[in-house]
């Protein structure tokens, strides 16, 4: 049903819990922007093709502004430019600097990876062997986090010996952890690179009775991850702030559509830094999270 209000859309790169916080951000922004029609859209599959058709359809439906986490920003220049020529386009999560996007709001996966490396460094002063777990090892976000992590542990005795993929299947994710314990008895640390990997590491180690003996470094803020951090069995986790991306992004976009371009910085980048969550600040973070989503 066509709405009279200008439409602003936040398009994710797939459906994942990660975006729940962004949805909350959109909701909060909507409350403050009654003259706009804000929404958050998932492509039905996490593929470039599905996302592209969603964008085409949104433009057709008359979207005035789109904020997108492109499935594959590096190779989607043409598509993004096409969209940018028809509507106000912002990028988030992972940037596409070569396109005509108006601005990027988000954080850096490389930086997040480095922060994860710092957690590992602190937790294992004597070094150790790490195994990474991820959905798609070849995906950009995964590669950047791994790259950052390797950066972060450079010069220490910590080694990342392998990264196992599970094709976004949590059964396989858990099984990978169990198999890694069997295949590599020397492992002393595990890194959960996608948000669901850390809880699966936690569960598999718990069942194997290895919880607490192996250092777990996580990403994102799954409830189990935060619980583990609080419990002390997870050394720490690196969180991004999709709530902020969405909230600030939507407000910026609304202003931009209304003709106020002052919010866009010269370098077109608005970096919302990632945070390290450890036992010390986990309670505060959880409370924050609850407040934001509530």
């Amino acid at each position, binding site marked *: *049903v*066509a709405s009279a209000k200008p439409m602003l859309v936040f398009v994710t790169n797939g*459906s994942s819990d990660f975006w729940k916080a962004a949805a909350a951000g959109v909701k909060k922004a909507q409350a403050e922007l009654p003259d706009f029609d804000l*929404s958050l*859209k*998932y*492509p*039905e*599959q*996490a*593929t*470039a*093709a599905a996302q*592209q*058709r*969603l964008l*085409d*359809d*949104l*433009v*057709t*439906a*008359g979207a005035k502004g789109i904020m997108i986490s492109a*499935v*594959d920003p*590096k*190779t*989607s*220049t*043409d*598509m993004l430019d096409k969209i940018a020529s028809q509507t106000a386009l912002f990028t988030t999560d992972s940037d596409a600097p*070569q396109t005509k996007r108006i601005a990027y709001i988000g954080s850096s996966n490389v930086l997040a990876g480095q922060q994860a490396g710092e957690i590992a460094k602190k937790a294992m002063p004597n070094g150790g062997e790490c195994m990474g777990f991820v959905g*798609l*090892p*070849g*995906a*950009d976000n995964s*590669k950047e986090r791994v790259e950052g992590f390797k950066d972060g542990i450079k010069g220490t005795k910590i080694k990342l010996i392998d990264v196992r*993929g599970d*094709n976004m299947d949590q059964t396989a994710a858990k099984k990978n952890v169990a198999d890694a314990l069997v295949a590599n008895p020397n492992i002393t640390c595990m890194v959960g690179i996608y948000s669901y990997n850390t809880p699966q590491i936690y569960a598999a180690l718990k069942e194997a009775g290895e919880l607490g003996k192996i250092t777990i470094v996580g990403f994102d803020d799954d409830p189990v991850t935060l619980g583990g951090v609080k419990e002390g069995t997870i050394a720490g986790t690196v969180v991004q702030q999709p709530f902020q991306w969405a909230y600030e992004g939507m407000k910026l976009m609304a202003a931009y559509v209304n003709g106020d371009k002052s919010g866009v910085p010269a370098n077109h980048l608005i970096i919302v830094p990632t945070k390290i969550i450890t036992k010390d600040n986990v309670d505060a973070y959880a409370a924050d999270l609850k407040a934001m989503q509530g």
Partner: protein
Amino acid sequence: MNKKDLGLLLLILAVGAVVAVLNPRFLLPINISNTSNLVGLFGLSAIGQAFVIITGGIELSVGSMIALVGVLFVDFIASEGVPWPVALGLMLVLGVLVGLAHGFLITKVKLQPFVVTLCGLLIYRGVARFYTQDATAGFGFGQDFPLLDGLTTGKVYGVPASVIALAIVAGAMWVVLHRSVFGRYLYAVGKNEEAARYSGIRTDRIVISAYVICQVLTVLSAIYFAMYTRSIAPASHGNFYELYAIAAAVLGGFSLQGGEGSLIGVILGVILLQELQNLVNLLGIPSSLNFAVMGGVILIGVTMDQQWGAFMARRLRTRAARAGSTARPDVAKNSG
């Protein structure tokens, strides 16, 4: 166009009318162009699937082949510097080889089509992922192939190139399927392979040809898909596309038992599926319901089709009974 196809066409128009009323932007030329572009892309592989389904087979490796060909083609021309016509040629050869392999395993080694192509689904996806180590294959910034782009993503008077390609392929394949000797053999093999063999038909060759045609058309559609997305994530690109193709064929009146279906039917099936996807996005239906809408409409469509078929058969019989009760004219006529 037979009655079944006509029914499907009416369904497409009816759905379109409803959507157009709810959101008039549905009828914008750009929207029709976008949607028909996707019809072109999916249509190419669906026609291939149709050939296989007519023989009573099934081709589950379509989605994986689309990923594999996409990865190889883009990598060849974007990174390896292979001229694109050469790369295209190589991909077509790959399609022929894969089709031959599937056909060989099915006819000579006598494996079930479902099994052979399921293994294909797993293997080609695995190879595609291994080839790029799960990385996305794509074009660098500003890397352009004007002629190739024009042929795949260009438009002629607003008509997307993929639609033109589909029209050409569909026209040719319509003749092959509904007019040629080979087409007749396909139907015969699909309905009763043994009887076809006992009629001196080289059934194995017919079946193998069907798989080769399917794979060649799949390669073609893979290239169109690759140029459309310009970015191929080997783990997810083309996932489930075989199911879309099969669903389109089934909606279009094909029987998975083989021996039934028309070319127009499968194209109408593709159009309906794409219309549904478009509708979900345009009407602001939560995208999580996308699949459910698609499944629901397919189910309703085939049920109506089935009930309609049963109804027609009943009517035919009743009418025959009435005709038969009068002095059996037909038999008399024909025995003379």
